[in-house]
């Protein structure tokens, strides 16, 4: 084979000649330093390579090594609790090799080759298996039972299966394929990141992904297998909201992709997740989390890959039948990486310098979400939800990345600068945001919480909308000239905002609220409204109504622990008694 060599270097773009016969998106190693790169354009003998590491110090004439396989990730036990960079190098291993700063050309496999796993087979020799069938399990953490599956494209009869302690590269089973070939199965599957993993069937998501955040779960819920986006200017609380969802949502596996964001935020995740307890299982949250971190100062091309690395790992867990959530913070940085590479390729730009294929790439990415039936004969179901943060310049929602995202996602949590400045967090603007899952989730909410929850929500939303227009009027004519009915609406809306929507992520109790508790708080807030409204009609003094001490009690209900439902009953009693 002819040796490929570098012909030109321009930042992360390297052009190599002598690359005839390579394929698009094949992975290559550039120069003697063995920098990782990927072919993104081919012109006869020339290959345009985006390099995932800093290219200073390399020059024309140096060799390029072709691998002839696409950029792939290793899937298998050992991913949970690990922090990876954008091309799935475990950062802890990188640290032990190259110190506190990331050196170039470090080559570490995604999965630890030395750790032994206890494999328990669940099939016997002679079993006929098809892709996706579970061969056995490993207790990866106390939360995750890792299922070793027959890789896509392999089917036949199990001719050998082992039990015991193995490293990931050991052969744990042999499958005699229909053509008579023996296929050796290890615990690793390699999968190209840009290709969606196969599924059997996709269907509409009907179950909510509860996040413990009142404004989200009650007003703008997302479904398990759904998609959502959080656009907002800086300082509006995107990352805190993302972290909150990663902490408290009832997904079984979380893949957190920190794409072009701050290093200290990754450190925060790493520091807090081992200590925080999952509210449902009481186990450390890190035991269900995979982190892909490509911070803003790490090479820009790897940032582009990090989103795909994350979603491919997530799909793998989904294929085991888990409900998985991918948090991508922030997709704007990923889009900017696309733009940067596109500029260096001298492509004709679309809007704002972004490449013309921006919106199709975004759509493709979000479409990898869904509620599905996994491959395999047991027809287990898995769900993959994708939540993406978007950071539009100046918070301007006409930004091409926001617009392209809104066209595909079903839930929009619009963050608002004004709310953030008044320290109303989460700063999700209730008049701007929407969720298209209300109808899908109706049945589930009715059966698990209460039918009344839905009507309460609609009523509360109506009051918030009326508040907006009443405040306009009050601004012009003064609040005193409004009728008592209208002033009661203002008071109640204020209570909904402050006592229900406002949630302190750093308060030990307030940070998570179960659906049941959300329902009971909202019920009390709204109960006050309907009783007070009746009383006003009966001629009771307005000021004495709004100064009732029970209102302060209602305002503190969000700080009541989950295991003390009697506090709510007490408050309900008090409300009833004080308005006799």
């Amino acid at each position: 084979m002819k040796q490929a060599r570098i012909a030109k270097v321009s930042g992360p773009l390297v052009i190599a000649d002598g690359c005839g016969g390579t394929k698009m998106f094949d992975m290559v190693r550039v120069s003697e330093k063995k920098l990782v790169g990927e072919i993104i354009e081919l012109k006869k003998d020339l290959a345009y390579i985006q390099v995932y590491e800093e290219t200073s110090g390399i020059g024309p004439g140096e060799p390029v090594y072709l691998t002839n396989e696409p950029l792939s990730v290793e899937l298998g036990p050992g991913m949970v609790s690990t922090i990876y960079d954008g091309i799935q190098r475990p950062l802890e291993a990188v640290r032990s090799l190259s110190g506190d700063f990331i050196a170039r050309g470090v080559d570490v496999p995604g999965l630890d080759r030395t750790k032994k796993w206890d494999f328990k087979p669940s099939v016997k020799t002679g079993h006929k298996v098809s892709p996706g069938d579970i061969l056995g399990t490993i207790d990866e953490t106390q939360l995750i039972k890792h299922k070793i599956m027959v890789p896509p494209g392999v089917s036949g009869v199990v001719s050998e299966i082992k039990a015991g302690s193995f490293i990931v590269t050991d052969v744990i089973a042999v499958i005699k394929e229909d053509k008579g070939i023996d296929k050796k199965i290890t615990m690793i599957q390699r999968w190209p990141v840009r290709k969606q993993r196969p599924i059997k069937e996709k269907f509409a998501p009907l179950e909510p992904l509860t996040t413990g955040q009142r404004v989200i779960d009650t007003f703008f819920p997302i479904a398990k297998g759904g998609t959502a986006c959080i656009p907002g200017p800086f300082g509006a609380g995107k990352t805190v909201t993302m972290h909150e969802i990663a902490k408290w949502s009832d997904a079984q596996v979380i893949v957190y992709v920190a794409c072009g964001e701050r290093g200290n935020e990754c450190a925060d995740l790493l520091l807090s997740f081992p200590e925080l307890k999952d509210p449902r299982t009481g186990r450390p949250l890190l035991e269900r989390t995979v982190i892909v971190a490509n911070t803003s100062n790490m090479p820009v091309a790897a940032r582009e890959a990090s989103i795909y690395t994350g979603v491919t790992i997530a799909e793998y867990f989904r294929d085991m039948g888990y409900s998985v959530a991918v948090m991508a913070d922030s997709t704007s940085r990923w889009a900017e990486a696309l733009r940067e590479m596109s500029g260096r390729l001298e492509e004709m730009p679309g809007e704002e310098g972004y490449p013309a294929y921006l919106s199709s790439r975004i759509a493709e990415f979000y479409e990898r979400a869904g509620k599905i039936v996994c491959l395999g004969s047991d027809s287990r179901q898995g769900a993959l939800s994708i939540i993406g943060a978007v950071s539009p310049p100046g918070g301007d929602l006409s930004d091409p990345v926001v617009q392209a995202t809104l066209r595909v996602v079903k839930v929009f949590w619009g963050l608002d600068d004004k709310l953030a400045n008044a320290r109303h967090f989460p700063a999700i603007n209730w008049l701007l945001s929407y969720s298209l899952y209300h109808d899908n989730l109706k049945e589930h909410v009715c059966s698990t919480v209460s039918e009344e929850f839905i009507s309460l929500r609609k009523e509360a939303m109506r009051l918030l909308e009326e508040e907006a227009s009443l405040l306009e009027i009050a601004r012009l004519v003064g609040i005193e000239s409004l009728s008592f009915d209208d002033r009661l609406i203002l008071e109640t809306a204020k209570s909904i905002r402050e006592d229900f929507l406002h949630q302190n992520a750093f308060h030990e109790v307030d940070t998570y609220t179960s659906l049941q508790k959300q329902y009971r708080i909202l019920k009390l807030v709204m109960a006050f409204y309907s009783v007070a409204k009746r009383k006003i009609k009966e001629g009771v003094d307005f000021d004495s109504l709004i100064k009732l001490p029970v209102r302060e009690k209602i305002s503190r209900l969000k700080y009541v622990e989950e295991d003390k439902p009697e506090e709510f009953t007490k408050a309900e009693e008090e409300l009833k008694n004080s308005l006799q």
Partner: protein
Amino acid sequence: MLKEYLTISSVSGPLVVVEKISDVKYSELVEVQFGDGELRRGKVLEISDDKALVQMFEGTIGLDVLNAKVRFLGRTQELGVSPDLLGRVFDGAGRPRDNGPQIIAQKRLDINGNPINPNARAYPSEFIQTGISTIDGMNPLVRGQKLPLFSAAGLPHNRLTAQIARQAKVLGTDEKFAVVFGAMGITFEESDFFIRDFRDTGAIERSILFINLANDPAIERISTPRLTLTAAEYLAFDLDMHVLVILTDMTFYCESLREISAARKEIPGRRGYPGYLYTDLASLYERAGRIKDKKGSITFLPVLTMPEDDKTHPIPDLTGYITEGQIIVSRELHRKGIYPPVDVLPSLSRLKDKGIGRGKTREDHSDVLNQLFACYAKGKEARELAVILGEAALSDIDKLYLKFADQFEDTFVRQDESEDRAILDTLAIGWELLRIIPRSELKRVREEYLNKYYTV
């Protein structure tokens, strides 16, 4: 023996194309000897088989195509470091500016550095007391944080920055900060103000200054912040010092970046700034931080002036997306004669929550700051309302909020330039102000703290 090339084929702005070269590497340092013997430096921006595109650091005035000689130095731009750097003043390219001797380097560091492994980062959690209430009380700074000052032309950001550099300390320790100061494109008077302030207070002994003035080559500004941060990394992670890095003014830095991008005929992003402005700024800002098992830290305070006071201008916008908060200097407060004119509402410190509270400042700090924010926001709303309807039309409670906002600006925000206000004093003023508002309104403060501090 380095090869000399006489093969410059074109010069355009700061960019020079050299032909017929061999064995040249990307981002290598270049020395160009002008026809009159003057030496200037640059670096390789793009390299193909026989052609290199070189960006000159100090401009191309006086460069001719025929006689200039080009040498490729085989290394990237480096800074020679040693403890002797402390107390010295350098120019924007790292040459002594104070008539002192050359530094004898203990080692040479690539000024671009390497990214800190996120897994090696220690989370910043030590509260830094700056002695300024609007920062300590409302937007606390912690060691290893990057917190920019968003200012604008004509505002006293220099005085504020110098005050922070003077007063910053970690409670309960005697450790002092070393200050590494980088100036890009500022005027002589401004730089003189800092140098004098550092000299007068004796801070210069623990400082390193890199100064690129407004009339120095604009392109040099690209390397000034990198030199500054490389020196800071050396002090922090090799010599175990706590370093406060001040870079002013980032706006000039970004403009130099735009200049080069335009000369390279790249497709511009917003307002003509290159599409990689975010990545480029991040490669500077992200060098702040702490590392596990290392004693030192880099706390980073960049200063930028917002063109037309516009926060959505690309420079403040992208900066805000990378840094951990921002301190906004307000023209409105400055006009009212309030110093320091920090507008607390749009200001933010993202890392505050791990740096405050019991054992760090005081247990009620977090609740108090949330409540002060909420009350001040309401007070400002009431003030707007009063402008439209007259103060008489305000409800009783709104009148209290209005009073709160006025007093907040007067007693909490305002302080003297030499006043080093301890955090407990700041909190005491905060509670004093909260007593203006009836207790039932203070929903952001926990009962126990209200019991303890509200009624005195």
